[in-house]
């Protein structure tokens, strides 16, 4: 058994997370609460028809994005599926840029050309949310390939780890099997994080995946270190995920994580949720990851009290309110932007009807 797999079995006596400073825990608490609050306001804006298209809410799964991203370096590449607001914020995207993107404004992270499902942030090494289920998995392998190539062939980089997130529904895609095979074959440092919230839209996992009690077998089939993590407790996430990251970085090889989590809202904003009971949702809310960490901070670490928590929430509510306000008032994309960013080298005669040009500089760059 590898070091990471041993650690993954959990050791209640001395936890890796015990060594984390209080400030780190409070940073995570803040980050999770920011996502929760942001998503609440996102739903409101969606209901007011300020946000269009498909919109997938991350509430309930915060410990996954915040915990796993908390284990890597700022310049480790990250690629996501379409349920991506949480990761974008956890990665450091300005909430204004994230919200403005959903509002379809020029100040959005993709200048209003991507929308909810396509959050990109180059300065934060975020290689996009991706709308096609499973499409991001070979991309994740490629980010790891490039990072390893940069370090090994070009000699100008350092050992990196790529994080590639996918839902439990995406594990059924052929692309994912190919992505894993390539990562294992070429020994690439990518960690596939299956955010297993139990449902692919309205199809429960045992109805969409064979042998769904043992997802780890899929990673193991390729000789990939495969670990199951209870993703509702962020300290547990750190305890198990951090050694895995270190190992993948050090050994330059992939890993597979079955990350057990739960989403509180419907699949997207238009989901009547007939496939699950309110009871089930309530049960998971009892194990809420934010409440969990707050409790730990209050009663074990004594690093925050009721007043401090209230203050933190107020501050966060204000940040999100500002993001909404900003997006409301932000300018629409200039009509000319329709024809920009199509080509990096726009030359004549590429289209019978369009004349392409370089776009305005992306607000994040």
């Amino acid at each position, binding site marked *: 058994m590898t070091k990471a797999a041993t650690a993954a079995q959990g050791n209640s006596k001395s936890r890796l997370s015990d060594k984390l400073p209080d400030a780190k825990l409070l940073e995570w608490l803040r980050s999770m609460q920011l996502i929760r609050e942001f998503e609440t306001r996102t739903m409101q804006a969606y209901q007011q028809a300020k946000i269009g298209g498909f919109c997938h809410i991350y509430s309930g799964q915060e410990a996954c994005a915040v915990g796993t991203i908390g284990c890597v370096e700022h310049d480790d590449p990250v690629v996501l599926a379409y349920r991506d607001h949480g990761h974008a914020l956890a990665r450091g995207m300005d909430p204004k840029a994230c919200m403005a993107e959903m509002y379809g404004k020029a100040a959005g992270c993709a200048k209003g050309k991507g929308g909810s499902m396509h959050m990109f942030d180059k300065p934060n090494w975020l290689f996009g949310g991706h709308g*096609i289920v499973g499409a991001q998995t070979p991309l994740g392998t490629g980010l790891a390939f490039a990072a390893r190539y940069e370090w090994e062939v070009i000699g100008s980089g350092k050992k990196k780890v790529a994080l590639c997130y996918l839902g439990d529904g995406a594990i059924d895609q052929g692309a994912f099997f190919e992505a894993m095979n390539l990562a294992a074959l070429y020994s690439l440092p990518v960690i596939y994080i299956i955010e297993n919230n139990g449902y692919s839209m309205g199809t429960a996992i045992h109805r969409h995946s064979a042998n769904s009690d043992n997802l780890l077998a899929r990673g193991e089939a390729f000789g990939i270190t495969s670990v199951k993590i209870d993703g509702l407790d962020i300290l547990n996430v750190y305890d198990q995920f951090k050694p895995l990251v270190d190992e993948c970085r050090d050994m330059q090889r992939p890993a597979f994580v079955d990350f057990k989590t739960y989403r509180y809202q419907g699949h997207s904003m238009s989901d009547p949720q007939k496939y699950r009971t309110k009871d089930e949702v309530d049960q998971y809310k009892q194990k809420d990851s934010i409440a969990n960490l707050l409790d730990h901070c209050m009663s074990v670490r004594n690093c925050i009290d009721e007043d401090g928590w209230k203050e933190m929430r107020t501050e966060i509510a204000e940040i999100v309110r500002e993001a909404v306000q900003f997006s409301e008032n932000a300018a629409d994309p200039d009509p000319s932007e329709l024809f920009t960013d199509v080509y*990096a080298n726009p030359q004549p005669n590429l289209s019978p009807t369009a004349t392409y040009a370089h776009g305005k500089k992306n607000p994040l760059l």
Partner: protein
Amino acid sequence: MTTLDLHPATIENVPQPDFSKPLPPREGDRIIQFREALKEAMSHEMRQDERVFLIGEEVAQYSGAYKVSQGMLEEFGPKRIIDSPISENGFAGMCTGAAMYGLRPIVEFMSWSFSLVAADPILNNVPKMLYMSGGQWGCPIVFRGNDGAGGQLGSTHSWCVEGLFANVPGMKMAIPSNPYDAKGLLATAIADPDPVFFLESERMLGDKAHVPEEQYYIPFGQARLAREGDAVTLVSFGRPVNFCLEAAEKLAEEGIECDVLDMRTIRPLDIDSIIASVKKTNRVVVVDQSWPFAGISSEVITQICEHCFDWLDHQPVRVNTEDVPTPYAKGLEYAYLPNPERIAAAVKNVLA
């Protein structure tokens, strides 16, 4: 060695080859095969730029299923000449991620027919990434491989993907008809910061011609007037350009002289050269090895009608592969493809 700009802050002002430099002469006695011309273009760029690597089925130890990459493993080693499993969706997607990160992958499809299982990365990701990310991440990648019928491989292995794929904005498409252009266009494709779909033909890989030793860059969007005449304009791309030249040769014996335009790239499309020729000849035949319905020939003819309708003395005519799946039998396959006889008949048709 160029400076490695793996993570440029913006994608503007990407260094480009100096296209003002005159191209070396096409005539000479350095006779090599089409496949060697391709290898020379790749090898030169790989020597220049460590970000460039080649990946595909059998490209390394087997020296390429069609021997295009022969000797490259020996020169560049297994970290840059990479044998892939039969996993087009996987490795095309992997290279999409690598290109976003800042590398310059060359992805060899043994045949473009096999790229269809990689439709999601090559059509849904690569050409749209720059736009979808609001100008943050482009995909400087070259997909190359054999396109088209002619080897009695039957329907599944004989795809001409140009009609299908050129529909997608965000990509460029080059399709050489001869060894000289193959080298110069592939060099440009690798240097270009946009995704380039590069279409070769197994039937031409053994074709021989003079190819200069130095690296040269043929600008995209500039057709070559392969033969001059005033009776009819023949517009074509890729392998059928050679059929047009054959037909034109025969027609010349009957006193019919044709302009033969080798478009060299489909996107961009040098419509200006087509217009200039049509204004001279007033008659045009478009020869296209992909299917006719909503294809390249339909696009070219539409643009001709948009730009110089009044100059036409006869409605434009197209010669495509016949609108059926590719047959196996030799005779049927010949009849299916645009061949010199069909082209000559079309020319006579527009002159009638």
